[in-house]
Structures are given as C-alpha cells and as structure tokens.
C-alpha cells in the first residue's frame, strides 16, 4: 500500500510543481496518472522514489516512511520500487542481460556487480523474465541494437527483477507506435496482475489510460482534479484536466477501443495456451 500525504515540491527555480498531493494506491491496483505537460506527473513518481527530493509531505510504502530515510535505507527502499522510463533509459552500451541484471544492483555487493558475477538465482530469474517478454534469445545483444518496443520490454524486465511491490511507470509509450504502445501497456497490466503489483502509470494518451488502468487520476498544475474509474472521464472532466477542447472524438472512440482491446486480449490469451511466449511476442515485434 502506497500512501502519499501532503506531497509538495517546489523546484529551485521557484516553480511549485506539486501542491500538497494526497493519494493512496492499494496493493495490486493499476492506476493511470493523466494530465497536461507540466502538471507534475513525472515529479509525483520521482518524489516517490526520491530521484527528486520532495519539499514537504510524506510518502509511505508498506509502513516505511520513504521521505525521511537516510541514503543507505533509501537504497534499500528503492529496491522495492521498480521504475520504467520514457525513452526506455536502458544503458545503451551494455548488453540486454547486463541491463536486466542492473535491476539487482541493490541486492549484490559492488565487486559482484563489477565482475558481472551475479548469483545464479538472479541469472535464472533474468532469463525467465526475458523469456516472458520474448527476448531471451537477445540476452547478449547490446541494448542499442533493439527496436523501441524491445527496449521497453527490457526496461520492464529490469524493473521486475528488482522484485518490487510497486511499479513507477513514466510515459512508457511516449516514443512507441500505437500498436507497440498497446502491447507494452497490455504487458505491464498482465505482469501487474500476475505478480499482484500496484503501479502508477504516467501517460499522455487518455485512450490508452482508459483501456488499461483500473483507476484514473487527473493532475492539473500540481493538484488532483479527478480521481475515479475510467468510465467517469466525461467531456467536463477532460476539460477540467486539460482545458477547453472538443473531446467528443476521444470519448466516442473509447467504447470502440475498449471492445477491440478486450477482443485482442482474448485472442492473445487463446494464442497463449498453444504457443510459448517467445513466439507470441517475437511475432509482435
């Protein structure tokens, strides 16, 4: 369970990015955080694992108050929070395997990681995860040789091998084509279901958010202006989040897309029972 209370962030430039945010995310909930650029979405998730230091407020993850931890305890706490980035943020000159194993850095000693001698259990888990996303045959490829969708799946593996309680996902589809975006979102949702993970997903694409999240939180200028189910996103709500615009196209398409998505998901599951995962995902690249 993640509990955020009164989270405030003022940047050194004087910009007040978050204005006393209160937010609870129960275990196993996939939540989408939507809002215009500059609303503070990235700041919220970076304040949770303190890549950005909050100015005020508290963040509690499973009864550990993250905001007051010293650097050593903060590193331990970060192990429980997997992060998935916009533009993937893989270390491009490392191999796929090294990138995935870097998710274990918080658990191994420096010399082990320096010599790339990770425990066998970590290596097994890395291969298992790569196989799950259909990339185990790519383990020794350099990360910059992969396509966008493949890179993001490696990014997902890196986050999951941390064995996290919470996924922090920052614009996972921002540089992907529409089809790959859906695959990535579906994968994140499936994996969260399999592992009973909760997730906060920052996302620009309202339709994707509605398709794949159980709960939508709308952020505007550092304040929550909507918190509810995907079906509650009416034209008025969208106007409150993003400003005046003709939302009819967005809202109408939602229903068609939701049906299509459900159908697609059914197909995938049907395929799934017959084919190993790798073939299934490899076909989608």
């Amino acid at each position: 369970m993640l509990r955020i209370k009164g989270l405030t962030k003022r940047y050194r430039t004087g910009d007040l990015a978050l204005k006393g945010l209160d937010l609870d995310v129960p275990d196993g909930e996939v939540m989408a955080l939507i809002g215009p650029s500059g609303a503070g979405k990235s700041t919220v998730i970076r304040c949770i694992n303190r890549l950005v230091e909050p100015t005020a407020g508290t963040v509690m993850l499973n009864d550990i108050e993250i905001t007051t931890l010293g650097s050593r305890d903060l590193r331990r706490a970060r192990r429980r929070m997997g992060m998935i980035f916009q533009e993937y943020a893989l270390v491009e000159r490392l191999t796929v395997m090294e990138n995935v194993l870097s998710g274990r850095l918080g658990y191994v000693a420096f010399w082990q990681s320096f010599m790339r001698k990770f425990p066998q259990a970590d290596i097994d888990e890395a291969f298992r995860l790569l196989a799950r996303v259909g990339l185990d045959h790519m383990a020794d490829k350099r990360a910059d040789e992969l396509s966008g969708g493949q890179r993001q799946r490696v990014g997902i593996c890196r986050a999951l091998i941390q064995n996290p309680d919470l996924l922090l996902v920052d614009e996972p589809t921002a540089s992907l084509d529409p089809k790959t975006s859906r695959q990535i979102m579906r994968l994140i949702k499936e994996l969260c279901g399999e592992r009973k993970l909760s997730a906060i997903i920052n996302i620009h694409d309202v339709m994707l958010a509605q398709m794949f999240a159980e709960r939508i939180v709308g952020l505007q200028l550092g304040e929550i202006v909507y918190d509810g189910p995907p079906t509650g996103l009416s034209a008025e709500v969208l106007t409150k989040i993003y400003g005046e615009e003709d939302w009819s196209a967005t809202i109408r398409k939602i229903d068609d897309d939701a049906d299509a998505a459900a159908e697609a998901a059914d197909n995938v599951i049907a395929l799934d029972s017959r084919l190993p995962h790798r073939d299934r995902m490899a076909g989608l690249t």
Partner: protein
Amino acid sequence: MSIASTVPRHWQKPPLIKRAWLRWALGLGAVVYLAAAFGTTEVNWPRVWEGLPRGARFFAAFFPPDFSGHRDDIVNGILESLWMTVVSTAIGIAISVPVGIGAAKNVAPRPVYYFCRGILAVSRSFQEIILAIFFVKLFGFGPFAGVVTLSFATVGFYGKLLAEDIEDMDFSQAEAVRATGAGWLQWINYGIQPQVMPRMIGLGLYRFDINFRESAVIGIVGAGGIGATLDTAFSRYEFRSAAAILLVIIGIVMALEYSSGYIRRWVQ
C-alpha cells in the same frame, strides 16, 4: 486573397550583433588592427635571403641519416622514452579518473566539484616544457622528472575531457540505474562508465601518442628519454645521428597514430 500574398513582407537574417554602431566598430577595429600588425611586422629580407642557402646546407648535413654511429644511445633513448610514456600515461589516467569524476558538475557535490576543477586548472595552465624545467630543478636530471611532468600534464588533459564527457552523457540512463537502489560505485560502473568508456579509450591512446612526442621534447631540458639523446647529437653537431633520431621518432609516432586509429574504430 489575403494581404500577405499581395504585399511581400521583407525578411532578413537577424544580425549577430544587434547594435549597428557596435557591429561596425568591431569590424572596422579588427581590420585596422590587422593592417597595422602586418604593416609593422619587420622582415629583414636580405637576411632571409642569406639564410636560405644556410638552411639548405644545414638540411643537407642531415643526409644520409646515421643510424649506426650512436646505435646504443638511440635504442636506449627510445626505450627510455617509451617506458616514460607507458608509466606516465598509466599514472596520469589513474589519477585523472577520480579527479575527472569529481570535476563533473552533474555527478559531484559542489565543494568536490570546485576542488577537482581547481586541480585540473592548475594542471592545464602550465605547458609541459615549463613543468619539466620545474621538475628537473626539483628531482634532478633524468627520466623521473620526465615521468612526473607527463603524468601531471596527463591529469589536466584526461581529467578535463572525462569530466566534460560525463557532463554530456544521457542522464536518464544513469537515473535509471540509480532508481534500482544501486550504490554509488555501482551507479558509476553501470550508469556512467559504459557511456564514456569508448571515448575515454580513444583519448587514452591519443594521450599516449602526445606523451611520446612530449617525451622527446622535455628531454631537451634534461628530463630524460630520446630528447636527451637528440639534444646531445645536436650540441655535438652530429646532424646525421640527429636525423636518424628524428626519423625514428616520426616512425613511432606514425605507428602509434595508425594503431590508435584502428583501436578507436574497434571500440566504437
């Protein structure tokens, strides 16, 4: 039809310096100074004319290069220079890695940053010859002074370029590694090192190359190496031996140039 299509609007690239008088003053000033500088450059043309055959005779004295006369001196000098180069490059890079990381603004805390930038500034402000004269005074004649000189100069060069490379890196990759709960050394090793490594290998080879050439020069002020042999040959008017030494230096520099180019392409 709109007005825009009937009345063409004037457009010109905005000038670099907005104030017209300043623009003209700077341009005119530069032209006047250049003209004056050329006008007052004194050239003693008869002396130049006289010097040409002298130069030709001097040059002719180099031929044929004499490799055998002081063979042992040349071989020892070259070996000493190579040894100085290897040792000083290794020491210099070993010191410049922590200094360079400390001098990267996006990695080091402010006090560490200023301290390391200070080290780099001091190291870079003296030319090798001046350092060599100083260290020869300090440690006496011989290759040790040369090694200290070249190591010192390497720190300034390599540390600054490392710091700048770290500052130019893609910070999101490093941020992602930090988000996993990695420790500081792990963060450097996974998040930063892979991003800067290929360029730093190339620069290390380049610095090796520079250090070898410098080792030939600083020998002239007494800091050991092939430069000392070269200086002796010149002061004894043994130009053919000197020519041999110069050819060997040119050969080694070219070999280093080609091999470093090859290795750099390979690490990319």
